């Protein structure tokens, strides 16, 4: 962790995105108070909380491994914080049912964790974290252990839940698609530093570095040069997104920024064609040997490998420093 500074505004949903070992979980655990930082400070609502115990910070935490109490039922898990705080039994029972309803596990309250599926366990873990009405929810790769369909559904539910409760959330994931889909703001981390911090669309369309461009979304990176304000790559001039000083740079060519056009300037031989449903991902080898990828609507034309194909840029690719 090196010189990281991060502020999360009230009601904001912020995601820490990065490969494993980049420090995103450590940052989250420092925020929760599980890990004591070697230096720096943690402030909540402007008050220093660096030395505060985890429970004193008013945060809810959802673990990747769920960390449910295996010896307690779902209801006992969810009601744990209320019981420890000495709330009246009737009040906490009502609250347990309230949050259980929010995450749709009302019929499962009497089950033990090992009697629940992974997705159900994570719902219980979520309910347990929000039951004491924390100011902020911290989620450490909560969906990593689930299969793809449940992951997508639960991801949308988590976001809907924080919106409904107006809860601030700090979310850790290594899945860039998940980060883009769920967040107000994504913080890309690398080797203990923050690489870029931006709204999902900005991150995708205007990556600040080669690392972010490669990490977020699909892209072909091309060596480019800006000559008199116009990006030149692969021997043609490209549309310009934002003005930039002349000089060498890298072009981040997304597959959807190309379209088939018999008169297109980028001519080559189809090397591969993968049918993805809505799209056909085409790998094209240009005469200069460069390979580029393009997503073409699969309904109209399906070039086979070995055929000639011409493409044309239809949007301005992002440019990052070399």
């Amino acid at each position, binding site marked *: 962790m090196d010189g990281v500074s991060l502020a999360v505004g009230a009601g904001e949903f912020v995601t820490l995105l990065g490969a494993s070992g980049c420090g995103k979980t450590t940052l989250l655990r420092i925020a929760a108070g599980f890990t004591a930082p070697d230096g720096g400070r943690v402030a909540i609502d402007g008050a220093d909380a660096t030395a505060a115990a985890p429970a004193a910070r008013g945060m809810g935490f959802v673990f990747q491994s769920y960390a449910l*109490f295996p010896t307690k039922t779902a209801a006992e898990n969810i009601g744990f914080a209320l019981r420890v705080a000495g709330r009246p039994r009737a009040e906490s029972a009502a609250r347990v049912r309230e949050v259980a309803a929010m995450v749709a596990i009302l019929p499962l309250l009497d089950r033990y964790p090992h009697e629940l599926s992974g997705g159900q366990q994570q719902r219980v873990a979520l309910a347990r974290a929000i039951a004491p009405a924390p100011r902020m929810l911290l989620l450490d790769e909560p969906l990593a252990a689930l299969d793809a369909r449940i992951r997508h559904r639960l991801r949308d539910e988590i976001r809907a839940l924080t919106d409904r409760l107006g809860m601030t959330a700090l979310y850790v994931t290594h899945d860039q698609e998940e980060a883009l889909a769920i967040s107000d703001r994504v913080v890309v981390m690398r080797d203990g530093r923050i690489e870029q911090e931006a709204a999902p669309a900005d991150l995708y369309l205007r990556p600040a570095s080669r690392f972010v461009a490669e990490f977020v979304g699909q892209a072909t990176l091309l060596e480019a040069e800006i000559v008199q304000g116009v990006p030149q790559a692969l021997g043609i001039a490209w549309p310009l997104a934002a003005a930039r000083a002349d000089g060498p740079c890298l072009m981040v060519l997304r597959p959807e920024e190309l379209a088939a056009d018999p008169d297109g300037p980028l001519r080559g031989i189809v090397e591969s064609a993968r049918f993805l449903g809505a799209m056909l991902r085409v790998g094209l080898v240009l005469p200069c040997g460069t390979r580029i990828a393009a997503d073409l609507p699969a309904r109209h034309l399906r070039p086979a490998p070995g055929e000639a194909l011409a493409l044309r840029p239809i949007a301005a690719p992002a440019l990052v420093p070399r």
Partner: protein
Amino acid sequence: MNWRRRLPGWLLAALVALPVLLFIFWPIAAVLGRGFVVTGPMPEWRLHEATQQALALLPEVRREAALARWSVPRNPQEEVEALATAFRLAGVTPPWDLAAPFEAQREAAAGARAALPAAARARLEAALPLAAVMRHRRVALAFQVRDQLSPEAFEALRTGEEWRIGLDHYRAPFDDPHLRRAALNSLGFALFACLVTTPIAFALAFAVHRGGVRWPGLLRAVTLLPLVAPPVLVASAIIMLFGRRGLVTDALLEKGLGLIDADETNIYGIAGVLLAQVLSFVPAAFIVLDNTLRRQDGRVEEAAGILGASRAQTFREVTLPLAVPGLKRAVVLVFILSLTDFGNPLLLAGRDVPVIAAVIYDEMTAFRNTGLASALCVLLLAPGLALHLALERIGRRKRYDTGAGAGTAPEAALPRAWRGGLGALALLVAGAILAVYATVVAGAFTVEWGVAWRPTFAHFAAAGTGYGSSERGVAVVWDTLWVAALAAPLGGTLGVALAFVIERIRPPGREVLAFLALLPAVLPGLIFGIGYILAFNLPFGLESLALTGTGAVLVLNILFGNMFVAVLAARASLQRMDPAIEEAAEGLGAGLLRRLAEVTLPLLRGALLLGTLYVFVDGMTTLSSVIFLVSGDHKLASVAIFNHAGSGDFGQAAAKSVVILAWAGVAMAGIWWLEQRGGRRLAGLR
């Protein structure tokens, strides 16, 4: 299924199963059976029956003549005894004092005989000749009909003793006051040991896994040290420190500081046994609880913490309930270890505080009463089993799966007071263990502990002189080394082969095989030792096959008693390993032996090494199963140490212990080196 393809596998299975049946199942079954066999005087009705049957074998003429001759009593004693028996056979209790002088009895009996009513009198007169023969002339009768009787029936008639199936031995602890006292003592020690040892071991494991001590690795190493300990190490050290000539009691407190009179102190007795047992069994309980806490997901405790639970609440609500299955296992383990421990009670309490395990030892070594010893061994299993079943019924039976986060400890430091308490306890236990080892090492180099404190190497002389000289000197350790070195690779190999058969060849009854291989681990060593005597003293009634008294019986006992480690380790490796690897080799044309040699065995190398090491170390240090199997020509160092310690010869005991420890260290270092060499190739499997 192609039988040619399966045949080599079945052959291997048979080859492995046979020794398991012969050297594990048979001895244990022999112990189970032997406890029901009662030898002793026949009851009167059986004697009557046998005499009558033998008489019937005589031709009628000779029978009449013999009865007439034999029914004349030779002296008053015979007359009275025959009359008393005839009274009982006639259904009348002899109405005179059977303890009175025979002359007086004779007159009383005559009176009683005359006073009987007519019917009873007739029955008495009819029974009298037979009563006389069965009481006093059975030997003569036996020889007259010897040719018509089986050897057993002849012996039974001659001696008036027979064997039968009965529960006498099993009832003994309930009937005999001495055994009853021993049983209660055993249960008392066992309860105390498990109630004190388990919490200590749990606190140590908690300290290791939750940052209660500064050097958790060191604490774990020291706590586990006594697993590699020669027998009665702890008891010896306790006597050497706190006995009447002890370093602390005599040399320091009495002679040094003048505080006490060491002759007045008494470590012998209940307190000494309790101390020795707790210290001896902490490592075993620690292993169980160390594993339990290692598997716990520390994130669960963090979850409790962020939800507002205090450290104490987290401990009570999360850590402890999760550890309950492990705690139950540790309690049962220590309970059984204490019940079957005879070394500590014999050394520290002697016969004043009898315990069942020590009674078994005495019944075997002093009285050769194998029947009672076998029954007591079996009975010794009952309380442990009962405790296990009782604990299983309490609470839910589930072994909790704490999921993906297993093995991560929470980062937050424990409260200062907790760390202080755990640190003090760790210091106390680790200090005690280190003191035990230091004392024994010091004793090995001391002329005579408690009397002459000069340093010496004399105890390391190869051969000894004086009392018990055949066991004195460290030469007996070399014999032990040979036995262990022979048993170790055989046990390791057989264990791995058995695991392979169970996991890959999968013959019917494989679960039974696996269970049998584990039995010696669960059963007290005493049973396994007695079983070897019963099974191999006269195998199949053939003296030429007798194994007792040979060195081979020691090798076999150690081999099969400790083979289970190799089996468990190899099964675990095989279960982790994809069977498709072997199928691939088979698909490429490799036969069973080639597959084993080139594909499977290299992957089981770790299990083989671990299994071999375990057999070796346990073979060097084990006492309970081999103590009945040593003989004049074939001694073991562990038994010698036990005998030395029993006779107060701590120099000899300590010297042998030190040599054994050194060899165990060498073996472990050697195995470690071998593992390192094969490390890179197998790194992917860890």
